[in-house]
């Protein structure tokens, strides 16, 4: 049975991806008979490169991908190295982890409401400290350099990387390494960095790649916080893809190919960066310096973590406040009046999308976790990891911009009369959820100490029993974290839900983005609150269940 799992996984991921890509690449070269393109040509690329500001958009997408990832990783690495094993670590870990659950769009809105010139921070300090009776005319959100966008992405990618790191930590002898380095006189931060971090980084490397790909090809956060003159490449792509003018479709597909190249370049640049940073770190290590005076750096790294968490929580709090506010003008720090008006007005419209969101997310997550477990267990039995090439295919959906293959996919589903069905929608969600589940799960799964299984086998337990009674319970925490990640990913999906669902399966997220463009902060508040609530429940379960089940098994809990 299990031997069918890897082919099934590949089928589920590769077929939609391949068809979607083909549906993108062929039109990029002018071939799409249904729209009158019968001959291969490079005209779409010529049109694309004729677009004003194209290179700026493309280079910006590339830089945003790299800078976001570098900052996010530096924050996570700095924090883990500086604070691992302390009470503050657990405190901030519990503070930051839930943030992964917050969909990008909701966090971006909240962030914008905090930092805008008429935002909450300005209101808190006006007019008594700033003297502003009216908001200053400052370009903070949508700045041309994309700083707000980078910040908005970082506050969301940090929790993701941290959670993946946390899930990988039990697989690395982190505490012992730390103690050892400390006994040799190293400061806490660099001691951890030199001994435990390299092994940790190997475990989370694929997640880092996913962050690069996500940040360089992001649409929804860039839509809210990103530059507008011009927009980043992915956002412009969505615009061209949706243009009523048919000829734009060819150019949009060519643009999708460029986006794939941009994301690939970002990944390549990162690989070069890895090669550079590694030796530098080694040479620093070889100097033998102990870096004992790391108090300030540790405070800064902890402070940055706490600040990013504060910004997201603050933003969500402000959104929640807006959802119950009446008239609320600048510079009041509090609304003139509170009312449930917005909740009452939107309440009836919420139940349907809420149910749809939960059903799709549960189904897609369930299927994804089952497939991922089956694949990993098969690999465990055969001892083969399915080859790096097969593995790369599994991660491809994370490295290809969504928009790049969704249009082709939509055409395929329409031709098969399968669009706007639960099955198609769940399948498309699986395409995006499975890689994340796999990504979260595979590292801890592979790093599992197989001697436990050897002992069980030596005691006479059959393979199935070893799986269910030994490996799975010990890795339950990792499995649940992976499921929670999958659930959150599904809840946050916008484009696939809209395109494949033909708009007939409104979810909380599609509703939020549709309303978000309207700028009514009260309604955004309502939807953002619900968006936040759903995945949060998932993560709460992922934390609570192992804690309850294994309350008397300290080693399994991964302390």
């Amino acid at each position, binding site marked *: 049975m299990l031997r069918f799992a890897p082919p099934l996984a590949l089928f589920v991921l590769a077929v939609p991806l391949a068809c979607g890509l083909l549906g993108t690449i062929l039109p990029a070269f002018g071939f799409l008979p249904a729209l009158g393109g019968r001959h291969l040509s490079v005209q779409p690329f010529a049109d694309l490169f004729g677009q004003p500001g194209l290179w700026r958009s493309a280079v910006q997408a590339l830089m945003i991908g790299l800078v976001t990832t570098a900052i996010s990783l530096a924050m996570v690495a700095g924090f883990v190295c500086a604070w691992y094993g302390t009470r503050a670590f657990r405190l901030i870990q519990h503070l930051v982890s839930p943030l992964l659950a917050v969909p990008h769009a909701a966090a971006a809105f909240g962030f914008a409401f905090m930092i805008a010139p008429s935002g909450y921070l300005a209101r808190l300090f006006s007019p008594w400290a700033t003297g502003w009776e009216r908001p200053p005319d400052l*370009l903070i959100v949508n700045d041309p350099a994309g700083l707000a966008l980078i910040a908005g992405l970082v506050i969301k990618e940090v929790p993701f990387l941290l959670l993946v790191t946390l899930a990988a930590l039990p697989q690395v002898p982190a505490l012992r390494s730390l103690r050892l380095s400390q006994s040799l006189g190293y400061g806490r931060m660099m001691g951890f960095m030199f001994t435990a971090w390299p092994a940790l980084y190997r475990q989370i490397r694929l997640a880092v790649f996913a962050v690069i790909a996500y940040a360089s090809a992001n649409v929804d956060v860039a839509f809210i916080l990103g530059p507008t003159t011009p927009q980043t490449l992915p956002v412009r792509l969505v615009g061209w893809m949706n243009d009523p003018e048919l000829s734009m479709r060819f150019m949009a597909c060519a643009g999708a190919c460029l986006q794939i190249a941009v994301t690939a370049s970002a990944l390549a640049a990162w690989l070069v960066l890895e090669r550079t940073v590694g030796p530098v770190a080694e040479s620093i290590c070889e100097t033998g310096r102990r870096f004992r005076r790391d108090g300030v750096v540790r405070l800064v790294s902890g402070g940055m973590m706490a600040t990013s968490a504060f910004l997201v929580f603050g933003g969500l709090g402000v959104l929640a406040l807006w959802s119950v506010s009446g008239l609320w003008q600048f510079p009041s720090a509090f609304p003139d009046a509170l009312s449930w008006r917005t909740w009452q007005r939107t309440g009836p419209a919420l139940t349907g999308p809420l149910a749809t969101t939960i059903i799709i997310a549960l189904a897609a997550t369930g299927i994804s976790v089952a497939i991922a477990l089956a694949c990993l267990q098969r690999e465990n039995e055969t001892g083969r990891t399915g080859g790096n090439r097969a593995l790369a295919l599994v991660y491809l959906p994370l490295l290809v911009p969504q928009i790049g293959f969704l249009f082709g996919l939509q055409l395929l589903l*329409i031709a098969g009369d399968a669009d706007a069905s639960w099955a198609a929608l769940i399948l498309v969600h699986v395409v995006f959820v499975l890689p994340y589940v796999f990504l979260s799960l595979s590292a801890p799964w592979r790093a599992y100490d197989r001697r436990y299984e050897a002992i069980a086998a030596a005691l006479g337990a059959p393979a199935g029993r070893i799986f269910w009674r030994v490996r799975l319970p010990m890795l339950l925490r990792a499995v649940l974290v992976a499921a929670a990640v999958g659930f959150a990913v599904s809840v946050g999906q916008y484009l696939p839900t809209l395109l494949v669902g033909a708009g*007939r399966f409104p979810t909380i997220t599609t509703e939020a983005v549709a309303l978000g463009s309207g*700028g009514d902060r009260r309604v955004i508040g309502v939807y953002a609150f619900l968006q936040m609530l759903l995945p949060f429940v998932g993560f709460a379960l992922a934390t609570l269940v192992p804690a309850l089940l294994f309350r008397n098994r300290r080693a399994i809990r991964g302390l």
Partner: protein
Amino acid sequence: MTHLIRATALSLALTLSAGSAIADPDPADWDAVLEEAKGQTVYWNAWGGSSQINAYIGWVGEELEERHGVRLVHVKLEDTANAVTTVVAEKAAGRNEGGSIDLIWINGENFASMKRQDLLFAPDWTTELPNWRYVDVENKPTITVDFTLPTDGLESPWGMAKLVFFFDSARTDAADLPDNATDLLAWAEANPGRFSYPQPPDFIGSSFLKQILIETVADPAVLQEPVDEASFETVTQPMFDYLDRLHPHLWRGARAFPKDYPSMSQLLADGELDITFAFNPAEASNAIANQLLPDTVRSFTFSGGTLANTHFVAIPFNANAKAGALVAANFLISPEAQARKQDPEVWGDPTVLAMDKLSDGQRELFEALDLGIATLRPEDLGPALDEPHPTWMSRLEERWSARYAVGN
């Protein structure tokens, strides 16, 4: 092979459904339409960026369900172009019936695009609607001519739009307000950072460009014809000169623009902008009623006239529930639905109906409306300027983006 299978499946499906899906409904036989519509689900693709409008569409759904047994689903769009894209994709995939969209809220360039590509349910169905007799065809020319293109009965009017400006009388002195594009430039110079417009191709932003174009062009008559590439530069040069002078004085120095008109209302409420505008004369009254804006906000227009048009609903050629869509379109132009739509507490969108065609009771519905403290009376709205040919809109948007949206 696949073709064969699909053909077989199709013919089987057709036989089984006893032909009900084959023939298009005939609006002239309204009873038959009502009969066929019963139990149908109508997927209405409409911009979903305003919670007030969404709530109104929700009410329409309840009424249709109760009166005619038609289930209405509002598919909320960010951009109407998405719906056009969907129909295009369906046509490309050969889905000539059972399409996913039954009704589209539409006008202007999207209508022109769908009409040109034969993507609309035809021929003329709108004049056959029972409630068509109330529509003010005589005095509202934009009901039959959408951006210079004859509607040919392919789209049914839903509401009237006119460009109207808003300001907060608590902050801004009404005496200083601009009365034309030239005034507006002077006002912006005197009040730096307090005016902006949504970034084209946002619908309202592009409309602002057209307003400026009409006011600055040497001969407005050329705008009624499709764009002539040879003279495009010359014709639009004064408009771009105007914008070049205006931009340094705009909000954020024109390095960023608001996304759409509801965002501008929010910015007006925040005190970031002093003058905003929308296509709905009752926008401010509606926003006051919904506690978005303070009750000191008022409206004004240009005495030389502002852009005016009509927005419509249309049915795609491959709609799955054409009868239901017809029933919905007919209900939308009923006096009751139109009066409710015009109520600023609900939405405030002006009616497409002629008051003198209504019965006393029906007229009473409209006369009873309090248009709101910030809404100008219809007679104070000033002259209406005609929309340019739709080709202008797309060319202006292109040129605008090339000029202002490519970074420095």
